[in-house]
Each structure stands twice: as structure tokens, then as C-alpha cells.
């Protein structure tokens, strides 16, 4: 418990507090009046309103599109299911800078919608909503589908034997069991869309702005740290509330359900209706998720003889001191370091959270660990600069800052994956081992570790994939001699010229493939109780 608390205190709470304090303090006295001033501005109120309603609409749309998918992944068995589950997760871990461009090919000019029906959605709110579905589809499929697969279908069958209609049986038996997972998924999607940055910036055009975009603008462009600090606090409160509700629904879910192994609940679809549902879900995935990714691949191949890929190996372009291909190595190195930190911190936190004697405070910490997911990267980045600036902790120019920042985002995933598994370990096993004379360390090694080994690997894999795609924090601190993949892509896109654009597409494709492979490996490791992400 001490280590995770110290880690979050040092690398999250302190930097964020430092930058907020800088914004709200003038000549040593607090300017809390600024809060009212800022919130009274009509522009800011407009931003708050837009942030909220687009998040609500995105969440509703994501649930509507992804719940059938969750059902199909949970209950049907079909060839290629594992690969497909990995594929639908790829968007979630890819940086928006990469896919925003490709997503325009779907909804923008000359895109699929344009060609079929002459509909263009770029710079409309529809583009934002659809992109949010694209990015968060996997959250619903994995959270809801994971649990759905473990609900015993025989309960519903029993209700039908007793005379209930199939709709009534579903409503009375399955829905109540599923509701907490749906709520948890909805809240996660709400959290991610409430704090949406890249999607809104790239697809929304300058007329739409979320709280997160506004914080970035105030900090980075206008340099009005006071306004940024107020907005950060507002977002903090909102995210805290979302997480509190989320923690509550998660706890409810972990209580009463009788779960079975997912392999026993899935079967081949039968009858025209089920096949049609499967086909519908597959078509949705193909159009909404695979097509934008395919556009990236196609554009990366748009030069003879893999020209863009070959160009990646040369440093002549001048955009970097090193050939862009080296970004792959940098990304992998950072991701390994970030994963190690995230697994250590997240694992310790999860272990502390499962202890019987864990009090209120510790359980509250569960929700606190998720906060970095909802605090803007620019706030954390600027906070690092002014908080971690003195030896021995002058890390501003150190390579370790990149994995540290990435680990902040990875830890919540580790905790969420480990927690259900650790909670399922029978406490009596540990007690028996202790009674027989094992030291706590040995108890952990002999009892917990074998049981959670797979969950640990999955957690590590997810943290790894998230680190690979992390852009917001990395872009602040990456060094020119070792850019990560997303940073390299962003920089190539910032230059005119065919080769730069093509190389950006090629690097994006490589990043996508690396993420997909990492996720595919995870699929092979799935255990029956690790459904949350």
C-alpha cells in the first residue's frame, strides 16, 4: 500500500496539485474567486454543456452498437472469434493522432458514407460520436461480454421451462445479473468520452470543444493557467463523481453472481435469426472498426515496392536525428519499462485492496487509482515540469519520465484485471499456509502467485499495449533522439510532402500490427475471471 500511495502521490497528485496551485495563487494568496469568474463565462459554460451532452450521447450510441456485439462474443462460437476480439480492441489502445486521419476516410469527403448516400459527417458532431463508438466498442464488449459469457444460460432456460416468454426470461433473469456490468461499462465509456481530446480536436473542427480540449488550449496556447486550473478542478470533480459511481457498481457486481466457465456457454449460432444477428454484428465491426484501420494500411502501401516502409529506415528525411524505424525500438523499450512499473505498482495496490482488513480508506483508493485516466495529459505534463525539478528528483530531462507517465495510465488497467482474481482466491488457503508456518512472502509465492499468474500476464499485456499507444503525456517529454511510434507519426504528419505522409501511414500500420499482436497473445491467455477490460 505504501508504494502505490507514494507513487501516485509523487508522480500524479503532487505535480497536478503544483500546477493547479500555480494557476490559482497570485503573490502567495489563493484566488478562489477565479473559480466563480471562470464559470460565469458563457464560453466556458458552453464547453461544459457540450462536454456533458456529447459524452451522454456517445455513451448511449456506444451501448446501442456494442451490446449486440457483447452478446455475440459471449454466447456464440464462430471461427476467428479470438482474432476478432483482439481486432476490436486495437482502436482502444491506438492513439487518436493515428486513427483520426483514417476515420475521416469513413465519414469525410469521398468516404464510404459519401459514396453510398452522399452523406458527409466531418466537422459535425456525428463524426465525433461515431469515432467514440469506434474507440470504445471494446470497453463494452470486454466488460459486458466478459461477464455475459460466464452467466449460466441454464438459469434462463429454467425460467422458460416454468412458462416465461423468452423476453420475460431474459428481462427477469439475465438483465438483472448483467445490469451492473452494463452500468460499469457505460460509466467507463462516459469517462473516456467526457475527457475526449484527440477525437474532438481532429474530427470536430474548431467549433467543438470539450473540457479537456479547453484545458489544453488555455494551458498550451493561451497560457492562462488560472482558467486552466479552474477547469482542471471542474474536470477533477466530475471524474471523481463518475469513478465513485463506477466503484459502487463494480462492488455490487462482485457480490452475488454464480459464474461458470465461458467455454461452456458459447455455442454455434442456430437458426436464421441467430445467424442474422451474427452477420449484423460482423458487418458493423467491418464497417465501423476494420474499415478505418484498413484505410491506414492501404495508404501506407500507396507507393511502389513498399516505398514508404523502405523510407522508414533512412535518416535522410531530416525530420529526426534517427531513422524513423528506430521509433519501434524506442516504443518497445519504453513500453517494457512502463509495464514493469505498472505491474509492480498495480499489483501491490491490488494485493492491498484484497486484504480482508482493508478499510474504507483503502477501498476508496481503488477509485483514486483510476483518476489519471480522467486528468488531462497537459496538466500532468506541465505539473511534472514544476514539481519534479530538484535533485534527487529532477526527472524533467530523464528518460524515466516517459515510462512513468505511461505507467500512470497503465496502473488502473492492472488493478482492474488483478482485483477480481485476487478477490476470488480463498482466504482460507492463505490462512492454512500461514498456520503451517509459511512466511507471508512464501504464502504469496505459493498460494497467490500460481493462481494469479495468468491474470498478471494479461494485466502486463494490457499495460504494454496501452503504453505503446500512449501519446498525450509522451509527446510532452519524449526526447528528439528517441521518439516513440505515436510521437514519430505525429511529427511526420506535421510536415509537407508525399514521403512524410506515407511514412506516417506506414508507421501507424506498424504500430497497429504491434498492438494487435500484443492483444492476440492476451486472448490466448484469457482466464475465466478477467473480463473487465
Amino acid at each position, binding site marked *: 500500500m*505504501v*508504494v502505490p500511495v*507514494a507513487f501516485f502521490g509523487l508522480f500524479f497528485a503532487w505535480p497536478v496539485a503544483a500546477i493547479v496551485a*500555480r494557476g490559482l495563487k497570485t503573490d502567495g494568496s489563493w484566488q478562489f474567486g477565479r473559480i466563480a469568474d471562470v464559470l460565469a463565462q458563457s464560453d466556458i459554460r458552453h464547453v461544459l454543456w457540450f462536454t456533458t451532452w456529447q459524452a451522454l450521447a456517445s455513451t448511449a450510441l456506444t451501448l446501442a452498437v456494442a451490446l449486440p456485439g457483447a452478446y455475440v462474443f459471449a454466447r456464440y462460437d464462430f471461427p476467428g472469434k479470438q482474432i476478432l476480439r483482439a481486432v476490436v480492441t486495437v482502436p482502444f489502445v491506438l492513439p487518436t493522432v493515428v486513427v483520426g*486521419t483514417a476515420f*475521416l*476516410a469513413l465519414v469525410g*469527403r*469521398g468516404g464510404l458514407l459519401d459514396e453510398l448516400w452522399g452523406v458527409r459527417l466531418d466537422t459535425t458532431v456525428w463524426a465525433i460520436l461515431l469515432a467514440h463508438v469506434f474507440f470504445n466498442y471494446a470497453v463494452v464488449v470486454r466488460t459486458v461480454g466478459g461477464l455475459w459469457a460466464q452467466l449460466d444460460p441454464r438459469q434462463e432456460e429454467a425460467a422458460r421451462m416454468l412458462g416465461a416468454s423468452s423476453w420475460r426470461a431474459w428481462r427477469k433473469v439475465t438483465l438483472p445479473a448483467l445490469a451492473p456490468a452494463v452500468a460499469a461499462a457505460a460509466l467507463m465509456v462516459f469517462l473516456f468520452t467526457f475527457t475526449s481530446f484527440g477525437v474532438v*480536436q*481532429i474530427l*470536430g*473542427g*474548431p*467549433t467543438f470543444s470539450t473540457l479537456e480540449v479547453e484545458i489544453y*488550449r488555455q494551458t*498550451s*496556447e*493561451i*497560457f492562462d493557467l488560472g482558467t486552466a486550473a479552474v477547469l482542471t478542478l471542474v474536470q477533477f470533480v466530475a471524474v471523481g463523481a463518475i469513478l465513485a459511481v463506477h466503484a459502487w457498481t463494480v462492488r455490487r457486481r462482485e457480490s452475488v453472481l454464480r459464474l461458470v466457465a465461458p467455454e461452456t456457454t458459447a455455442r454455434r449460432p442456430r437458426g436464421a435469426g441467430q445467424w442474422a444477428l451474427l452477420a449484423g454484428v460482423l458487418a458493423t465491426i467491418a464497417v465501423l472498426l476494420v474499415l478505418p484501420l484498413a484505410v491506414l494500411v492501404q495508404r501506407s502501401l*500507396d*507507393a511502389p515496392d513498399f*516505398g514508404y516502409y523502405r523510407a522508414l529506415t533512412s535518416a535522410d*528525411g*531530416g*525530420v*529526426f*536525428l534517427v531513422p524513423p524505424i528506430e521509433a519501434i525500438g524506442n516504443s518497445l523499450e519504453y513500453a517494457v519499462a512502463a509495464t514493469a512499473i505498472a505491474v*509492480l505498482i498495480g499489483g*501491490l495496490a491490488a494485493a492491498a485492496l484484497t486484504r480482508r482488513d482493508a478499510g474504507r480508506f483503502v477501498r476508496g483508493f481503488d477509485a483514486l487509482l483510476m483518476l489519471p485516466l480522467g486528468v488531462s495529459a497537459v496538466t500532468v505534463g*506541465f505539473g511534472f*515540469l*514544476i514539481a519534479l*525539478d*530538484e*535533485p*534527487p528528483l*529532477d526527472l*524533467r*530531462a*530523464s*528518460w*524515466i519520465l516517459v515510462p512513468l507517465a505511461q505507467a500512470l495510465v497503465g496502473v488502473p488497467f492492472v488493478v482492474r484485471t488483478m482485483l477480481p482474481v485476487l478477490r476470488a482466491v480463498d482466504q482460507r488457503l492463505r490462512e492454512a499456509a500461514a498456520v503451517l508456518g509459511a*512466511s*507471508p*512472502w512464501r504464502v504469496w509465492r505459493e498460494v497467490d502467485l500460481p493462481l494469479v499468474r495468468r491474470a498478471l500476464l494479461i494485466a502486463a499485456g494490457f499495460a504494454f499495449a496501452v503504453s505503446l499507444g500512449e501519446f498525450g503525456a509522451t*509527446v*510532452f517529454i*519524449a*526526447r*528528439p533522439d528517441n521518439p516513440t511510434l505515436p510521437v514519430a507519426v505525429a511529427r511526420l*504528419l*506535421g*510536415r*509537407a*510532402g*508525399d*514521403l*512524410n*505522409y506515407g511514412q506516417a501511414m506506414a508507421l501507424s500500420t506498424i504500430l497497429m500490427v504491434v498492438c494487435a499482436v500484443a492483444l492476440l497473445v492476451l486472448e490466448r491467455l484469457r482466464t475465466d475471471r478477467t473480463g473487465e477490460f
Partner: protein
Amino acid sequence: MSSKKYFAVVVGLGLVALSACGSSDEGGSQSESKTVTLVSHNSWAVSKGVLAAFEKESGYQVKVLEDGDAGQAVNKAILTKDNPQGDVFFGVDNTLLSRALDNGLFQSYEAKGADTIKAGYRVDGDKVTPIDTGDICLNYDKAWFTEHKLQPPTSYDDLIKPAYKNLLVTENASTSSPGLGFLLGTAAKYGDDGWEAYWTKLKANGVKVVDGWEQAYNEEFSGSAGGKKAKADRPLVVSYASSPPAEVIYADPKPSTAPTGVVEGTCFRQVEYAGLLRNAKNSKGGKALIDFLLTKKFQEDMPLNMFVYPVVEGAAVPAEFTKYGPAAKDPETMDPAKIADHRDDWVKSWTSLVLK
């Protein structure tokens, strides 16, 4: 009990690891004076050999820190001014110079070679040294205008004519530096009172505004590589005078002429400066580095790396530049002090005028 011991071990290991990183980065006091740190934005680029030559001659090891885009980098430097991340800051331009100077970011230093800087680029005082210039100009898609048998526009005035309706895409002036440059160009041209009327007409003539240069150039502009793939339909974009040469240099095979051109009557000149940071730990090395930035060697290396023009007399500009995108002869300019006085208000008025 012993789980606490375990935590203690982990914490201990962590601290050892951190301090190890710290020391390997800081170096002893002896090696510190041998390292000079340059803080810049992420467009910084230099040929390896040129930098290596400086390191060899001066005996300093150059460490480069890139701090986001131009605006971010300046803001970060201001935030850390009491305990700066490096010795020299490069990349503050005339639109942001006052913010840096007002915050006391730099200490005085007159660079060796300052007398070779072309007239017109010097600023008052010796806090900063001009290093390069670049022009923000309208780019046009040559093929599009040939195909539609239309003359490309030649001035700001042309853009509000019916013939050029719905052809221009520009960037958000509050989030993008070319977007801001274009706004300042029109303010310089039409004056403090006239630019709003001009933008009202421009809006009525169908100007499209997107958030950043990447979207404008790669997605909306029909003349760029990305735009061609995205079937873009705007043949006019706010970009740089050096973009057409880039379209030739970064093409394989290289075309004989650039697919895009510059509307020379619509340029706004940016000047980028470097300065010695106040509280720099290695100010001697910093001074040497600034001197180096003004050497002919660096100035002539710069154009093809950062796509900007040199500022010193007699520095050769690469043939690609003169051939595919001549520097604007008579660009709009504005005094940094005037920009500082008006920037926020103008951007605010522009936002409510054009975006709302």
C-alpha cells in the same frame, strides 16, 4: 510484519534506481560544464555531421530537449525559468516573443556574428538573437487551377471575389501558428479597424476553418499527398512558403516542378529567435551554442532540415528553395510589441466573428 519489510525493500530499490538515473543524467560537476543543453520545439532538426563538427570544435556535448509545439515550448520555458531545463532556448517567434521577454526568460548576450545578420531582423535589446525566418503564405494546387481554367489568386483581395468561393481552408488562429500568422497578415494589411470587415467577407465567401495545420494540409488541401488520397476539395490552404519545395524533396520519384505554388501576395513573415536562458547552468557553453547557430555552416544546413530561411548575409539557400518556392519579396510583418498588445483581443474577436 514482514510484508512491511518487503515494501521497504521495494521502496529502497526504487530510490536507488531513481538516484542512479539522476546521477547518470546529471553527471559530475566536471562533465556538466562539458554539456550544453538546447531547449527547442519539436520542429528542431539539424544534420548529424554539422552538430558533430560543433561538438568537436568546441569540446561541448550538445543535448537537445524538445518541448512540444512552438507555443508549448515557450510556455514551458517560462514555467521553469527559475530552474531552467537547459542553457539555450531556440524557437520563440515574433508572435510569442513579447510573452518570453515580459516574463524575463532570457539574459543578455550579443552573439558573435550578430553583425552578419541581415538588416530588418534585429530586435531592440540583446536578449535574443534572430536565427531563421519563414513565411506563412497561401499555397495553391496547380493542377486544380489548370483543370478549372482559373487563375490562382494573387492577393488577399482576390480571396473575397466570387470566383474563389469555397476554395480556401485555413487554421484556427487560437490553436495554430500558421492560422495566427494568416490572421496577423490580414491585420497588417487592412489595419486594426479593417481586418474584421475583411474576415466577414471571407467568411461569406466560404472559408473553411479546421483546428490544425495537419488537418488543413493533409486532409482538406487538394494539392498535398494526403489530400489527394483523401479526395480533398480545397485548392487553397494557409501553409508555408517552403511547403512547395517540401512537396518536391519528399517525393519519390521527384517531379520536375512542384505540384503546388505560393500566392506571394499573401505572406506573413515569421522570425525565430534563440536566447540564453536566465539561470542557465552552463552559460559559457550556451553562448558558444548561440554563436554556432549563426555560423554559415549551421545557417546553410537549416533550410533543408527545418524548412526555414537563413538570416545571415551570404548564407546560400538551397537550389530547391529558389527553384520551387521563392521567398516572398514583400511579406507583411508586424512589430512583436504590437503583436503582444493585440494578439489576445484579435484572436478573441476573430473567434467570435469566424467560428461562431
